[in-house]
Structures are given as C-alpha cells and as structure tokens.
C-alpha cells in the first residue's frame, strides 16, 4: 500500500468514492452511511421496494475467498439497486490459468465494469486494486485478510443504532478471536468514531493482538468482568482456518472460558443485545439458547447487511460521478 487508504476512498469534495476501511472516516460520513442505509428500510426494518438508482451500472463480485452471506447480500444489494451483477468464478477464471490479478481487472474494466466488490485473503488487496483501477470505477472492500471488513462493521453499527437507539454512550464487548478478525478492527474504528462509551475486547492472550489497545479498545482476559454493564455483546467466530499455531488448548476449554451462555449473559445489562457476524459455531463461542434467544439480533444483522451494502454501493457510485452539482431543478 502506498497511499493513505482513508484519503484514497474519498473524492475531493469528501464524498465516498471507494469503501475500503472504516479507519479514519469521519463521524459525519459514517452517520451518512447509516442514514442512507436506514432510508432503504421501512419503520419495521424491512427492505423497501427495489429502486432504479444504479440501473445500467455493472457490478462485479470478485471473491478470492469463500463467502456465502457476504457475497449473497452484496448480490442482493446490487439487484435491489437495479444494477447488473456479475459473479466472477475465480476458480474457473483466467486468474487460475496464470493471468495476473491486474490483467483480469483491466479486462473486466474493458467490459465496462463500474464497481468491483473485492474479498481477498491478503490484507490491503482492495486498497491495491483501488490504486490501480481507472477513475470512475468504485471498489468496495468485502474483507481483506486480517485488515478490514468495513461493510460488516457498518451493518453492526446499524444493528446497534436500530436496537439501542444510538451508538453514542454504549458499552460494547467484542469477544473471541480478535487476532484473526478483520471485523473486530473495523468495528473498533467505527465504534470509536461514532462515540461508543467503551469498547472492550475479550479473549485469551493468544487471540488478543498486543497492539489492540492502541486502537482505543480496552483488553479483558476475564469474560465475566468484561460483561458487566455491557449494552452490546458481539461474539466472533473462532477462525480455525487461519490458526497456524496452537493458540488454544481446545474448543471445549475456549467455550468454558469465553463461550456466551445464558448464565454469562445475565452479567450484562438486562436489555443487552447479542450479535455475531456469522457463521456461528454453536457450542464453541455461543450456546444455542443465547443465539436463538430473545436478546439475540443475529438474524436481523443479515437483513441490515443488505441495506448497508446498498448504501455504500450507492454512495460510492455517487462519489464517482461529477460532484459539480448546481441547485436541483424541481
């Protein structure tokens, strides 16, 4: 990465033109994303009718890592904005025949792609692509390595806002595998910018990055202590596929210390909500009684994910358009 990712994702007038990271984005811009996402939802939280905003635009899903819900919700979001969407099958594409990533992208650009939604195992991949593509092509980061997953963070912010009324003043615990979590990093940046009272990161020392407190979060090793006075409990998945060393004695030991049970949840505020970005490992980080219980908003998160992705796609495409608008003619 050579350029500042925050600056790279903004147009000269401050509008979003790519969405790469929540890091460095202003409170106002994050609130605008939430406001726009809310406008795609009715008062009951259901998505509004399909709108013609991105009609004629071509969105390409470039998923170099497996994903079910993120890719599906991006596809649904693009569809509900009336864009045309192409899901590139990386396993069968020319990339697997030795074509470089940039050659693949330039070919897709030549096919009039207007937006790439990128998921990649390498941190900084979306940023790298945003630096290379021609102007007028927007890049949305759908998760890069351990670095960032900004749309997941923003759908979590929308979930907190809609269920707790506001983000400002909330005490939020993020629990589990922080070390491998791009979601946690993006959440911490967004929560701090949006005025959360306290962000607690909770897990065994082997799964808490040493520098995590530099982001403004407070590290806890004792789950029970961390749950006190919590308004929001966000459980994370144990990312076993990214664990190259013996970071945990066993899953059952992890569940005993950091699994969310009804008994543990009772230590948080009575109206605390429980979130999880999915996919859930039942009995590893959360018990079914909690995941399916009255305080869980896990399935709501998925629905809000479509609205947030519609918002950032619309805003990024908007930021790519001319920003020299005069007063609107009625």
């Amino acid at each position: 990465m050579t350029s500042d990712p925050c600056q790279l994702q903004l147009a000269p007038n401050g509008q979003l033109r790519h969405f790469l990271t929540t890091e460095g984005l202003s409170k106002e811009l994050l609130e605008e994303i939430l406001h726009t996402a809310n406008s795609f939802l009715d008062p009951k939280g259901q998505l509004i009718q399909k709108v013609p905003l991105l009609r004629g635009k071509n969105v390409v899903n470039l998923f170099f890592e497996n994903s079910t819900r993120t890719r599906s919700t991006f596809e649904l979001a693009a569809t509900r904005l009336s864009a045309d969407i192409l899901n590139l099958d990386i396993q069968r594409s020319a990339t697997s025949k030795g074509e470089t990533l940039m050659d693949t992208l330039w070919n897709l650009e030549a096919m009039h792609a207007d937006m790439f939604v990128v998921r990649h195992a390498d941190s900084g991949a979306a940023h790298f692509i945003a630096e290379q593509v021609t102007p007028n092509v927007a890049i949305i980061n759908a998760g890069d390595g351990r670095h960032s997953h900004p749309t997941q963070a923003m759908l979590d912010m929308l979930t907190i806002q809609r269920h707790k009324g506001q983000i400002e003043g909330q005490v939020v615990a993020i629990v589990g595998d922080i070390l491998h979590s791009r979601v946690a990093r993006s959440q911490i940046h967004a929560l701090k910018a949006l005025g959360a009272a306290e962000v607690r990161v909770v897990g065994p020392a082997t799964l808490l990055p040493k520098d995590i407190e530099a982001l403004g979060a407070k590290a806890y090793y004792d789950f029970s202590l961390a749950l006190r006075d919590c308004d929001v409990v966000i459980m994370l998945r144990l990312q076993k596929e990214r664990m190259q060393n013996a970071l945990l004695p066993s899953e059952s030991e992890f569940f005993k210390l950091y699994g969310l049970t009804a008994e543990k949840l009772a230590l948080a505020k009575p109206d605390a909500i429980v979130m999880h970005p999915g996919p859930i490992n039942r009995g590893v980080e959360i018990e079914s009684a909690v995941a399916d219980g009255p305080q869980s908003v896990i399935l709501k998160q998925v629905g809000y994910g479509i609205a947030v992705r519609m918002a950032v796609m619309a805003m990024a495409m908007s930021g790519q358009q001319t920003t020299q608008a005069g007063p609107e003619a009625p």
Partner: protein
Amino acid sequence: MHLPDIDATCQALSNQLQTYLETYPHSNPMIIGIRTGGVWVAQHLINTLNLPEPLYSVDISFYRDDFNQKGLNPKVCGSELPESLENRHIILVDDVIMSGRTVRAAINELFDYGRPASITLACLLDVGQRELPIQPDVCGAKLALQPDQLIKLSGPEPMTLNFV
C-alpha cells in the same frame, strides 16, 4: 420580478382543488406529498379542505434521472407509502413544478407500489420551462422565470417562497 404572495397562492390552490373535487368522480382519494415542500403543501390542503388522512409522502431521491450528474441526495428520508397503491385514486402534491422531472420520478416510484386507478397532480406554483409532457391538474399560481432563476419553498411554518 416579484414572487407571488404565499398565503394568496395557497388559498388559490385550495380553491382550485375544491372546485376540481366538486366534479371528482371518486371517493376517498389518497393524498401524497412529494418531499419536502410538497408534503407541507399537502398538509395545508388537508387542513383547509378537510381531505382524508393520513398524509403519505414520496421521496424521489432514488428515482431521479440525474444520478449520473449529481449523485445521491445525502438527505434522503425515504418514502412513507402504504404497502400497495393498487387501484387507488391519488392526489399527488408538489410545491413548484418546472422541468416535470420530479413528478415523473414520483409517478415512477408510485407505480412500484402497484397500479393506481388515477393520479391527479396539484402544484402550488407552475414556473414553466417544462422538459417533459407533464401538466398539473390544479395549480395556485403561474410564473414565468428567467432561464437562470430557481424558486424554493421553505417551511413548514411559515411557508415562504424564495429565489435560490
């Protein structure tokens, strides 16, 4: 050029709509204001003519035809419409009609909620310069603007007309 008096224009629109409704062949029309100014004018009409409530609103931000030039309206509020407009008679209200593109966008959005039986268009002020074949059925006043002039309604209390 002087702007018309807002109270007199509102009164003229109420009178025109009342006359129009005397021969209106349908019962229980639905009142829908185009955000933002059209909602204020629609509320005024409901109050003065005792029209049926609730007042619905349509926000055309996602239906504008100039997204490629101007991008997304950051103040989009969303529409407040019933689940279906199928077979409903609608009185659509806007503050100022000029190019006709706002009304075109609003009608497109309404059709996404079903096929209305009819749509009547009521506008507070008609400033000409139409770019689409759309005309109000009733309007409070007409005004010929210079090509570089724009008018905006501020409100809701009090409503005022201003040059932009």
